[in-house]
């Protein structure tokens, strides 16, 4: 396979990871807590998409908004169950509560759909694009395209709208935001809804290329976590860059050596990065005044 082909495949994988990582960072910024159920939300998105496709004879692109909407509602439920009761508690409490949510989601999927891999419908059916030896399947193209639309939509929302300003203010200093009259609780709930919606999109897209099983989420959350660390803890743009890097790395190394080696080397690379740059690849704004 040519290098260009590998890079394209890696970008497609990275784009899907970016949606996972972005949702992870949204919740992280809004609450200061790690949402460990983010990967399982992706899995839930995949199953939602597969189940809807079985019930409704619609193309994947038409189902996508329905999946995203349903997942946003699930995000609100997660916020209500796993975050708001634990708001005033140490961040590790939320870490564990979202692990519990993940367990519930995994076993709900197992009971509803069984352990066999499922697949979601393609976003659209068409011939792959070809340039000489390079092929880009329509699904890979769709993943990159939809991820690009969602990521830039997210960036636009945060940077240009009043709602986005309120979200950012809540993320930066919750007490100050509340003092300024921003509905902080609603903003946090919205962050969870957005994160779950992104997870839903990622799930619908990934479940067509790679299938979905009840335990899919575990590997995804680890990739997202790595992407966020590489990109700088809490940085949205960094998370996208980190996710693309992780996707590229995995694809290229898997092609050159093996899939197992790709995973092992990814973690090894992560350890080396942390060894050499304890503050992440792109650094983070930190520091405490005495």
């Amino acid at each position: 396979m040519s290098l260009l082909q590998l890079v394209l495949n890696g970008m497609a994988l990275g784009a899907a990871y970016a949606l996972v990582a972005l949702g992870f960072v949204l919740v992280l910024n809004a609450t200061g807590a790690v949402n460990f159920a983010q990967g399982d939300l992706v899995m839930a998105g995949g199953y939602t998409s597969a189940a809807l496709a079985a019930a409704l004879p619609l193309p994947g692109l038409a189902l996508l908004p329905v999946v995203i909407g349903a997942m946003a509602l699930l995000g609100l439920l997660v916020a209500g169950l796993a975050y708001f009761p634990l708001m005033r508690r140490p961040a590790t409490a939320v870490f564990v509560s979202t692990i519990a949510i993940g367990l519930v989601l995994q076993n709900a999927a197992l009971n509803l759909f069984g352990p066999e891999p499922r697949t979601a419908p393609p976003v659209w059916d068409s011939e792959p694009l070809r340039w000489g030896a390079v092929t880009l399947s329509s699904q890979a193209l769709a993943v990159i395209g939809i991820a690009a639309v969602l990521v830039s939509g997210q960036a636009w929302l945060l940077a240009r709208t009043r709602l986005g300003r309120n979200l950012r203010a809540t993320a930066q200093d919750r007490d100050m935001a509340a003092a300024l009259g921003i509905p902080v609780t609603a903003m946090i709930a919205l962050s969870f809804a957005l994160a779950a919606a992104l997870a839903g999109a990622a799930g619908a897209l990934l479940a067509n290329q790679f299938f979905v099983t009840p335990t899919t989420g575990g590997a995804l959350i680890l990739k997202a976590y790595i992407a966020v660390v590489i990109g700088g803890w809490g940085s949205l743009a960094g998370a996208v860059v980190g996710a693309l890097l992780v996707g590229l790395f995995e694809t290229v190394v898997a092609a050159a050596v093996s899939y197992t080696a790709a995973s092992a080397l990814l973690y090894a690379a992560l350890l080396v990065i942390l060894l050499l740059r304890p503050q992440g690849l792109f650094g983070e704004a930190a520091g405490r005044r005495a």
Partner: protein
Amino acid sequence: MTLAAAPPRTRRGLGDGALWALLLLGLALYAGTLASPYGLRVLALAGCQALLVLGYQFIFGHAGALSLAQGAFFGLGAYVTAILGARYHWDFAATFPLSILVPLGLAAIVAVPVLRLASHYFALATLGLAQVALLLVVNADDWTGGALGLTGVPGIAVRGEALPRGLPLAAAVWSAVAAGAWLSWRVTRGLTGTAYAVLRSDPIAASAIGLGQSRLRFAAFLSSAAYAGAAGALQAHTVGVVSSETLEFSVMVTCLAMTVIGGSTRIAGALLGALLLTYLPEWLRFLQGYALLAYGVALLAMIILTPDGIAGLIGRAFARGRQGARPPPTPVRLQGSRSATLEARSLTKRFGGVLALDGVDLVIEPGQILGLIGPNGSGKTTLANVISGLVSPDDGVMRLGPRGLRGLGADKIARAGIARGFQTPALPPSLSALELVALARARAAGEIGFFAAVVGRDAGKRRRRFEAEALDLLGRVGLSGEAERACGTLPPGLAWRVEVARALALDPGLIILDEPAAGLGEREQAELRAALRDIAGHGIALLVIEHNMPFLLPTAHRIVVLDQGRVIAKGKPAEVVRDPAVIAAYLGREKLPA
């Protein structure tokens, strides 16, 4: 990672010790009379988990670091036992120590780079480590049997004498748990446990009494790995099979859940969490396919309902007052034994484009009270931070007497004899002044340490000795009446007293105070002045940053004025306030507040 500190000893309920001893007794009764062979097997498995969680409490509960490698250490211990026991038929007397030593060795190797990482990076690095271990084990199938694992791990056998499964095995596992609990009890109940509480709730407060992060965290990380290795080995003997499942992330998740639900710093919490989450799936078995779903729901409910874990809940339900009477104060001789001249030359510190300190020279003689003034942003706090080691200078020389200080961390500088109070008092909110100052005394006496706590004798007696000394120091600053109050509830007028007492506890040569008089009334200012004079009278130097001129001018022997990172004037208070350069510097921004 911010973790809620343990509630102060004064409000601790039913003693942790009584609780875990009772629990072990109850289990012994159950095992001896009621349990079926299957029940005994589940009991032994719960014991393995209890040992795992006891170890995890060191790094997660006490050191406050979210390690995600505990499952990997557990799996490693299990594999060492399985490979040596099933393949090479080695004896338990050899495999068990090795199962502890291998994870311990791995922890020691990775500890140095990994432990200096900030919270979430530490979590991820340890997670990466666990994933690498899992992949290695799955792929080294010649040794490990790959994904299928190794079968035929023998039960515990020493010199050919096999320990039967059932009651004897369960008893052996729970004896190991009891031994682990006892060891953890020795380390964490006394002043070393308090040191961990300070370290995780406020690292700056810890460095102010000379407590470094590294040693205590290192010991906690290594202990957690050793306990995990032992737990893994015992589980391998109990189950007889070791597969790559023992290294999977779910083991780590279960351990974390047990720790949080049981209680992350109490020994009874480790036992309760392990027992409950081991038996819960058994109790939910009638739900069949939905058992794990219900388990997740139960987990969520317990996290929400029990903030300090079940052990904390039980402790509070049986709350009782402080044990034993307060010891009479033991007079502490303030010897000023480390009195020496502090000399700083050409200290320079740059923050990005801002030159916060621009070649500052400073000399403070023993017994001298030096006032440091200057407009806001002139570099006063930065200078204090540089001298106390919280910020490292870009250039310059610092020495206390003959000893060079440059390049030392805040904890080492505190040990060298420079104590520090903060503009926003750095006091662990849930600790009492008595506990904090007693801890500072113990640290100064070199009594704080993991291994010291394990081997030390008469822990209770020594604790009372340090508390008696702390009461004397707190009396000197007029705080005896409030000594047992949690620092977080002290009004600002009292907080400075704790900071000064803590500083004195280190027997320092120099004490740095940052705006101690801020917000104090006339009478309290007079008390503060008297306290500072008394301290200086013992040959201890004082560097006092202050905006309050009516307080400072009659207190200080000399005054140094900073403006834009430079010393613009120094001398006797009366001379300095008349200095045209000083007046100009203040009038440029604000009036000389005298």
